[in-house]
Every structure is written in C-alpha cells, then in structure tokens.
C-alpha cells in the first residue's frame, strides 16, 4: 500500500547524502531552506498555529485533500519520485554506512557512467517540465493571465521549491555541463528530433504527463517550459556568480574527488541523491497545509 501523506512527511530523512548535498548549497540561497520534516511539525511551522484542536483539523483536512485523487497531489508526488529514480543504481544501501565520513569518489568510479552532454541537457529539461507540471497539479493555474501564472510560479520559489531549483541549476547544470549550460540546453532542444526525445529513458517514464497530443507537441511544451524559467536560472547564476568549481568546492567537505572529475561527481550525485523527491514532498506538504488551513 502506498504511504499516507503524514507517513511521507514523517519519514523524510534528517541526515543522509541528499541532505548533505542540499545543505552545501546554502551559500547559493543563504538561510532560505531548512530541512523541515515531520507532518505535525510542518503544520506548526507553516501556520504558526499552537491550538491543538486546530492542528488536528488542519491535518485531517490535508489528509482528505491528499487522498482525493482528482485534486492532483498524488500525481505530483509520482512525478517528483519518477524523475528522480532515473538512475538510483547506487541507492542508499551502498552508502548507508558512509554518512559521517568523507566519501571517496575513487571507490565508485567503476560503477559510475557520466552522461553524454545531450542526455544530460535533456534530463535537465525534463526535470524542469516535471517542476512546472507538478506545480500546476499542486497549485492549479493561479490568477487570470499568463503574467499572473509566471508571477505565481516564480513567487513559489521559496523554501523547498527554491532549493530544488537551485540544486537543479548546480547539480544538473553547472557541475556536469559548466557555466554555459543554459545555451547548451537551448541548442540541444532546438535541434532535437521527436525520435531522439522518444529514445530518452526519463521521457519514456513521464511522457503521459507532459501536455501535448504528439511527441512534437510535447517537445514544444518542453521548449516553452525551458524558455519560461531560463531567465530566472540565468539570473541566479549571474547574481551569485556561480561556477561548477564553487559548487564542487562546497561538496568537497563530504565527498573526496580530484579536480577534472566533475562529470563523475555529477554522475555520483545523480545516483546517490533524490533531491527532487525529498524537496518535492516538502513543497507538496506546504501547499496542502496552506490550503487545508484556509478550508477549515
């Protein structure tokens, strides 16, 4: 049986490689993400509520909303989980005893395969699509105009959503592809054939959830998704003066790797972390609780 919403939030880990990796990005968005775990704890933090009877009502309403499949929350969770499971070959089991000590990347080299640039750019684009589709499943399409929608989307980039987008830029953009990753994504998407898209493993998993009647239509949606947040990502890189080396430097506090192996570092993060799922559950819980407290 699948987990209840309170189990999902209660079971969020407090200490593992994903959390270490995300905490290393605190320099990108200082103080803006705390690893908020536990369902009741999340209700208290988000609403500031202390009245136990009200907390009960909020939690109950959130459970009801989550379990109503027509409300889209379960689909959003599935998307966050599915896009993250593209290659978790190493998984947490192999690394469970590594938490607390510095992980030597050298020991994993024979089990890691860096992605070709095109596959990496496509993965990044598909994660962005998941971000936008999951956003719409969770929050609907707020406001009355495209402007309202984009304002709501970007305004949503706080807390766990902001951390997820920053991790996307750093771990799926800068480290594997370098500082000009945005132009690489643009070039790949502009030259991508529908057939090449269909061959991509992540696409095969989530294509039913991407708007569009055909592969060509879905490819257009992917392009538009990228265009809508490209500016935001570029600003983040520019404003923070981000480089692959700066991000890697922060990761070196718990991963031991040699310079020039950034593609292996990216592959390692890809298979050993699940930051989309982790922060996705936090994002989902936040919206759900904000709605529940309004509806009681």
């Amino acid at each position, binding site marked *: 049986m699948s987990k*209840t919403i*309170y*189990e999902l939030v*209660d079971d969020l880990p407090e200490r593992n490689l994903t959390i270490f990796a995300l905490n290393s990005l605190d320099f990108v968005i200082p103080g803006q993400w705390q690893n908020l775990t536990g*369902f*009741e704890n999340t209700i208290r933090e988000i*609403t*500031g*509520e*202390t*009245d136990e009877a*009200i907390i*009960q009502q909020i*939690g*109950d*309403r959130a*459970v*009801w*909303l989550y*379990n*109503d499949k*027509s*409300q*889209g929350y379960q689909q959003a969770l599935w998307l966050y989980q599915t896009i993250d499971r593209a290659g978790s070959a190493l998984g947490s089991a192999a690394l469970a005893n590594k938490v607390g000590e510095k992980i030597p990347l050298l020991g994993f080299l024979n089990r890691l395969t860096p992605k070709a640039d095109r596959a990496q750019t496509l993965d990044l684009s598909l994660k962005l699509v998941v971000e936008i589709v999951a956003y719409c499943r*969770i*929050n*609907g*399409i*707020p*406001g*009355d105009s495209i402007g*309202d929608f984009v*304002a*709501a989307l970007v*305004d*949503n980039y706080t807390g766990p959503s902001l951390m997820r987008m920053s991790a996307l830029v750093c771990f799926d953009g800068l480290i594997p592809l370098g500082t000009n990753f945005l132009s690489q994504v643009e070039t790949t998407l502009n030259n991508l054939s529908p057939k090449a898209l269909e061959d991509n493993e992540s696409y095969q998993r989530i294509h039913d959830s991407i708007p569009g009647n055909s592969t060509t239509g879905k490819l257009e949606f992917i392009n538009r998704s990228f265009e809508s947040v490209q500016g935001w990502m570029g600003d983040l890189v520019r404003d923070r003066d981000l480089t692959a080396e700066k991000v890697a430097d922060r990761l070196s506090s718990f991963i031991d790797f040699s310079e020039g192996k950034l593609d292996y570092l990216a592959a390692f993060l890809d298979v050993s972390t699940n930051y989309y799922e982790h922060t996705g559950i936090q994002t989902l819980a936040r*919206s759900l609780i*904000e*709605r529940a*407290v*309004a*509806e*009681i």
Partner: protein
Amino acid sequence: MPHLQKILASFALAFLLLVTACSPSPPSRFEQAQQESTQPKVTAVSPEAKAGGEFNRFFPQSKDVVFSQEKRGFAQAKLKQDGKEMATLSIVDLNDNSAAIAKYEDSLETVAGYPVVEVGSTGTGLLIDNRFQVKVLSRDPDFSSSDRRLWLEKFDLAGLGNMAVATGEENE
C-alpha cells in the same frame, strides 16, 4: 562458560530486536481521517463547488497581492510587503462542508454585516450566505488580528454575496 554466556546474550539480543520490531507503532492522530477519506466514492471537494478562478475578481486589488493557488472551490493569494510574506488571503466554497459552516453559529461579531470568527491563534474567517468563507491568516507576528479584519474588508464582499445568492437560485 564464557562461551555459553555469549550465546545466551546474543539470543537475548535477538529476542529483544524481534519484539521491538514487531510491536506496532502507536496509531497516528490522523489515522481516522485517513480511514474515512479512503472509503470508496468519497471526495474531499464537491463537484458542485465553484471553480477557483471565479473567486479571483473578489480579492483585494493591490500590487502586494500575489495569487498562489487556484483549485476547485478554492483560491488563495499571498500578501507581500517589502518582499516579506505577511498574510495569506483565501476564498473557499463551503458547499457541503457543514463542519466549517457550524463554527459561525456562535459568532457575535460582524464585518460589513457578515459573521466573523477567530480561527485558532492566527486566522480570522468571515462567512457569506452560508456558502463562501473568506479568510485572512497571519504569516508574520506583526500582522495582528485587527490587520486581518482590515484586509477582510478589502475583499469585494458584496460581489461575493451576489454570487452566493445567484448560486443559491441556480440550485433551487
């Protein structure tokens, strides 16, 4: 003998692990809602509830108001001042949510003629025609109960009242 002690100790440990692993964790306080909401054919939101987008025009007109959620029977916006989230504003269709409506029965106060209640320590709700709930929730300690009432008045409450009347007539 020390050998035997070791064996006994490891058995005792194994037994202890078995017992603790098998004892069920205490049920969650949300277990009942989980059971009730996963029965066949139950829904959280009535199909008859208004589309959330129909509520947008009744929100306070201000550049500080940023829409954040729009689902069936529900629309929400954030009130931001100097980049800081001060409050959330929402309109909800309480169609068939009798528990939420019942809390207004003992209301002694009104804003613009509509019953008002304090909900918990951070929220103020207002009920229109037993159908729509307008709520302002503080998200910053500086945003007081009187601030919440002030912002309740900035909604187009009369417009929502007209929609409630029209909705009631449709359903008759």
